[in-house]
């Protein structure tokens, strides 16, 4: 298999770390050779968190070359656009959770908030497949990552990694009520997504 590069991005506190571990361990369960690294300077304090995931035999560094990611997974709208611009290759895939955590300059009224249209326009330019995800009745923001995971699975965005592998990974990482809640949400979202086509 040719190297497959995933650039995962969002804001500190959104649950990037867990999603990254699920994708990484899912790929491992699928028999892929994996490398990854999280880059989080001061992420806990509302900064950007990025996780690089690389699958394949001829992969050395855990870091992806700029504009060479096959897939960008973003948990926030501004970070989706930033991810497309810095990381994604032409013809790649963007999946993002369409929530907004306004950056400082937007809150201070110094910069415009990024719109969904801007992202759509940029994706079109780069021949990028754009998948936008949102669930408006979600109780806990820290479970947005599971909604995104369900859609990664539904669209089979990562070659060779199947639903059973993601479930195995979730089983590795969580237990008790947290595991139950996450699996339930994952399966419900898959069903809902299947219904919508």
């Amino acid at each position, binding site marked *: 298999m040719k190297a497959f590069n995933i650039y995962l991005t969002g804001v500190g506190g959104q649950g990037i770390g867990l999603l990254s571990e699920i994708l990484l361990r899912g790929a491992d369960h699928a028999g892929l050779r994996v490398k990854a690294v999280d880059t989080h300077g*001061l992420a806990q304090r*509302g900064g950007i968190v990025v996780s690089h995931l690389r699958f394949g035999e001829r992969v050395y560094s855990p*870091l992806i070359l700029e504009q060479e990611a096959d897939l960008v997974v973003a948990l926030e709208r501004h970070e989706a656009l930033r991810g497309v611009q810095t990381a994604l290759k*032409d013809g790649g895939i963007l999946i993002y959770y369409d929530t907004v955590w306004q950056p*400082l300059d937007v809150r201070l009224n110094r910069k415009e908030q*990024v719109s969904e249209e801007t992202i759509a326009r940029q994706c079109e330019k780069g021949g990028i497949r754009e998948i936008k995800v949102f669930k408006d009745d979600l109780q806990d923001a820290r479970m947005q990552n599971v909604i995104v995971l369900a859609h990664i699975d539904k669209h089979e965005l990562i070659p060779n990694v199947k639903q059973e592998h993601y479930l195995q990974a979730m089983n590795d990482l969580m237990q008790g009520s947290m595991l139950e809640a996450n699996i339930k949400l994952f399966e419900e979202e898959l069903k809902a997504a299947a219904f919508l086509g």
Partner: protein
Amino acid sequence: MLNNTFCQVPGIGIKTAKLIWQRGAIMKTLGELLLKKEPFSEIVMGNTALVRAMIESYTRVITSYPGSPTPEIAEAIRAIPQEKRPFYFEFSTNEKVATEVAYGAAVNGHLSTVFFKSVGLNVASDTFVQLNHMNIIGGMIVVLGDDPGANSSQNEQDNRHYACLSYTPVLEPASPQEVYAFYKEAAKLSREKGMPIILRLTTHVCHAKEKVEFEGWVPRALDKTPRFDAQNGPYIPMAADVFPMKRRALRRLDEVKDYANRSPLNQVVDHGNKNRGIITMGLPFLSLMDVLERADVKPDVLKLGVVYPIPGNLIKEFLETHAEVKVLEELDNVVEKEIKLLAYDRQLASKIIGKIDTEDWIGEYTPDKVYEVLKKTWPDMLPDRKVHSVAISDVPARPAQMCPGCGHRSAFHAIKKALKNTDITVADIGCHTLGYLPPYQVGELMMCMGASTAIGSGMSLFNDTRRVVVFLGDATFFHAGLPGIINALFNKHRITLILMENGTTAMTGHQDHAASGRNFNEAADKIPLRQTLEGLGIKHVWEIDTYQQSQLAAMVKEAMEIDEFSVVIARHPCMLKFTREQRRKPGHQARRVDIDQEKCQRIYECIERFGCPTFTRTDNGSIVINPDLCIGDGSCLQTCPSEAITKPEAV
């Protein structure tokens, strides 16, 4: 104290390794994995692989001071229940103290390890530079978390210079698997020679994850005998003893030169290229291998595992068999200089290409950086990078912020009202440093741990017009803040110190400190800040919770009017830590504030001056709450002139 019952712990048979996700780390069963007696493989980060290597090497004493990129080493240690840890671990008050504790244990015969971040070595340096003058009978490894790219440090200093300064060998792994293997090799070497060895990690080696193959571990009973013997010395570097001690240090370094030549840690990647070769090390090696995937003709590669002292014979051979050799080296030209020296001495004719311009000295050698460096070196070797068709527009930057509910935010919002425009504010290291950002812009200069009070003291000299206020966190107070405070008192500097007390070492992941009421292992009496300051003889000390904004502002005003050293303790527990703890409690009820749109007069105090990230601007100019962010602390209520923010309510 160290409990030796671990020796009797029966083998933990785990069929399926469930790794529990908690606080961003994989906990609980990780502890069981790390103590497994059978060989196993697991996806772990470099920091975790290091802990298994320490266990397999029978390291008995481990010390540290928290700092990125190394705190996850302690998180992995925490995953092992204290009574099962086959070693003693502590977070010491600073890196120098940590180094001294580890050294003390090692001259008593216990293999020890100290780990800390890059700039931590500056703090530890007074002790560190002496280490190789000593006969460290137990062996001692210094694990450095260097930070090329300055991801979370105030500079990207190249600590290999300290290795040259102190005649200390450096091993440099590139991946988690190598972190594991290199530590074990370092431990062996250190014990054998009785000398310190540096294991130099960099940020993305610490945090890289891959499946690591671990060997088995046979627990061994702890030998508690204190083996210190002055006859093994001298241990007092004074007068006539200094030269023999230095001679021994240099002799040992020579011995390591021999070791370097036959070390299994060096590696040659032979592409059959007689013309071009590259000498590299650490993470840049992995970047290089990725980049070379795109080259039709690949240079041969010599990857150094021992980077100081360099393996002379190996390098000589490599130089002799290649017409041109590029030294691909992150940060400074430490190895390049050594290689050029060697080529001169041995009259080797091959062309050595080191750093070409200033940019080569700056930043992490990521695959992108290595591509650029190699393009500059040999333009024909690699194809031009493709540029994608997506336009690069201006996405608003997202600097780190103080968290919702953070006591520092309330403090800055209040203190700003007590300050004049001409006043000078000096920040220190910690979450409160973020006060320099808009909208507060409090803290106009910052240097390093604990420096604020003394810098502020200097700024107050000859200065009768601009008052000086300095900030310091509580962990930093103990780490390196005290000498500056004592100096201010002793030399009568007329400044105001605001001690930002949040009860934890927040920025690095909530490690306990001397005023937290716990050390890493157990409950410990809090060292009270106020009594400590008063005990020193500071006459003017105020103390208040930062949520009491108007009182805090009044106190700061009062303190600044006094013509002597004064201190205001501005305390509020870290709300990120507090909220996480609350969420874990059964029956926890989330709370949020709201904005009464009828009352809101769009003064924007909440979003533009108080600046909690919860406040969100809508298209029509109204302000709403981001329900994902608000923790319902209510610290914002007092900031709204039109009282439009409603009391926190359960949701």
